[in-house]
């Protein structure tokens, strides 16, 4: 039977008192993000062919592809950041690999209109 006593955590607590803390002072220090983090979407206009597969597979109806007026075979992508769930299915489904996830996660905004942006 192990002995039971009060204050088992004392030694470790004392060690922690003199060590550097593990939490960071965000936003004064930048948070660490992994390499392939699924952040905000980025679009490469030259590769897009306008097949609209991404709009069909999106679970949240968050992306729409529109034709750029007065230009041949040019499309723009409009993303609703407030609906996007950052699953990356559009990235996987695009046949020309025109979409990819960036590492940007600081997307808070004061108005809903600013979240519906062209990328």
């Amino acid at each position, binding site marked *: 039977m*192990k*002995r*039971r*006593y*009060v*204050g*088992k*955590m004392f030694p*470790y*607590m004392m060690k922690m008192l003199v060590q550097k803390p*593990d939490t960071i002072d965000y936003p004064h220090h930048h948070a*660490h*993000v*992994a*390499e*392939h*983090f*699924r952040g905000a979407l980025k679009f490469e206009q030259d590769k897009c062919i306008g097949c609209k597969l991404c709009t069909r*597979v*999106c*679970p949240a109806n968050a992306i729409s592809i529109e034709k750029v007026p007065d230009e041949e075979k040019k499309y723009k992508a409009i993303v609703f950041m407030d609906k996007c*769930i*950052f*699953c*990356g*299915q559009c990235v*996987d489904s695009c046949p020309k690999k025109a979409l990819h*996830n960036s590492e940007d996660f600081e997307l808070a905004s004061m108005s809903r209109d600013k979240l519906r942006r062209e990328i």
Partner: protein
Amino acid sequence: MGKIVVPFGPQHPALEEPESFSLLLEGERVAAAAVALGYNHRGMEKACESKTYIQNIYLLERICGICSHAHSTCYVESVESLAGIEIPRRAAYLRSLIGELERIHSHLLFLGVAGHEIGFMTFFMYAWKDREIVMDLLEDLTGNRINYGMNTIGGVRRDISPEQCERVLKAMDQLEERTKYYQQVATEEETMLGRLAGIGVLSREDGLRLGAQGPVLRASGVARDVRRDDPYDAYSELDVRVATDTHADVYGRVVVRVLELMESYRLIREIVKNLPEGPISVKAPVKIPAGEAISRVEAPRGEDVHYTRSNGTDKPERVKVRAPTLANLAAITNMIEGGYLADVPIVIAAIDPCFSCTDRTVKLVRAESGENRTIDWQGLRQYGIDWYRKQGIDMEKIKISRKDM
């Protein structure tokens, strides 16, 4: 002080998710308890019927933040058995790897929450600091800290590189050392043992009769684990040792989860060592042939069951989810009654409740007459308006100002 009825929830600092427990108190003792569900019902099963199979993976993943990979794996397995496709071995191993990492993350979260409920904030902070190691590892492997999005029909979406394997093994060494320390604290610290031992007792017979699952049942001495009894993914080739304990109280559940943590470290090392080469997915058809399938996995909280029925189109006809906490909830009233009010939070935390998982459609039947009633959307809206009118509030006068909602 007579008998009073104290509402424990739905909003309460002890509960992470809303659930209503009404306790009848005599002084500090709980004489009777009643549970009311349904505060987290979001209509997910109905929403599944209007989305394609691939879109449903992301929807069902978000049933719960902590057991998201378990739900996603279970659903994908039932769809794969309907479509009749077999995933490559490498994909099965990667799915198990993420599943075990999720189990570690969930059990470390439980240790922290248990510490928080008994007022031991230091333990909570230390356990969640170690959880950060696992979260960073998962972010490295899958791209997100929770809701991993790793599964697709026919395999997994991302591969793992040898450097990532190295990082996984190093993290396992770190975590194993920390978990041994927590094992010592949980068994030797007097104030903690005083709050955990002898509380919330669920005997073996009661557990089997009420349908308890997962660590709750394993703490009462029943060795039941889906990974060993009905192996899926890579578990048929791995040797899973089921952790049990005979204490049958909250202390036993803590011990079982710590033992499962050590077992998970061992399993992950084995998975990474024996990872087979090959493709990570096979092509899956868009339209799934008609049929119905049931699949089950061992979520961190117990046995998770999914049922899918397809009718030959690209959208499922019916998806049903039975989360393990729904089965454990029946045992709660048994465990709370007769105990102290001060023990209610830790007993509830010891079944590791995930009420987001629990609240799906359940058919309710009136106890006296056995009848049940179905009501459609318009009828429900009118019922709500009438109810509020009786209270003196006229809902029809409320103006909706947002046009795009």
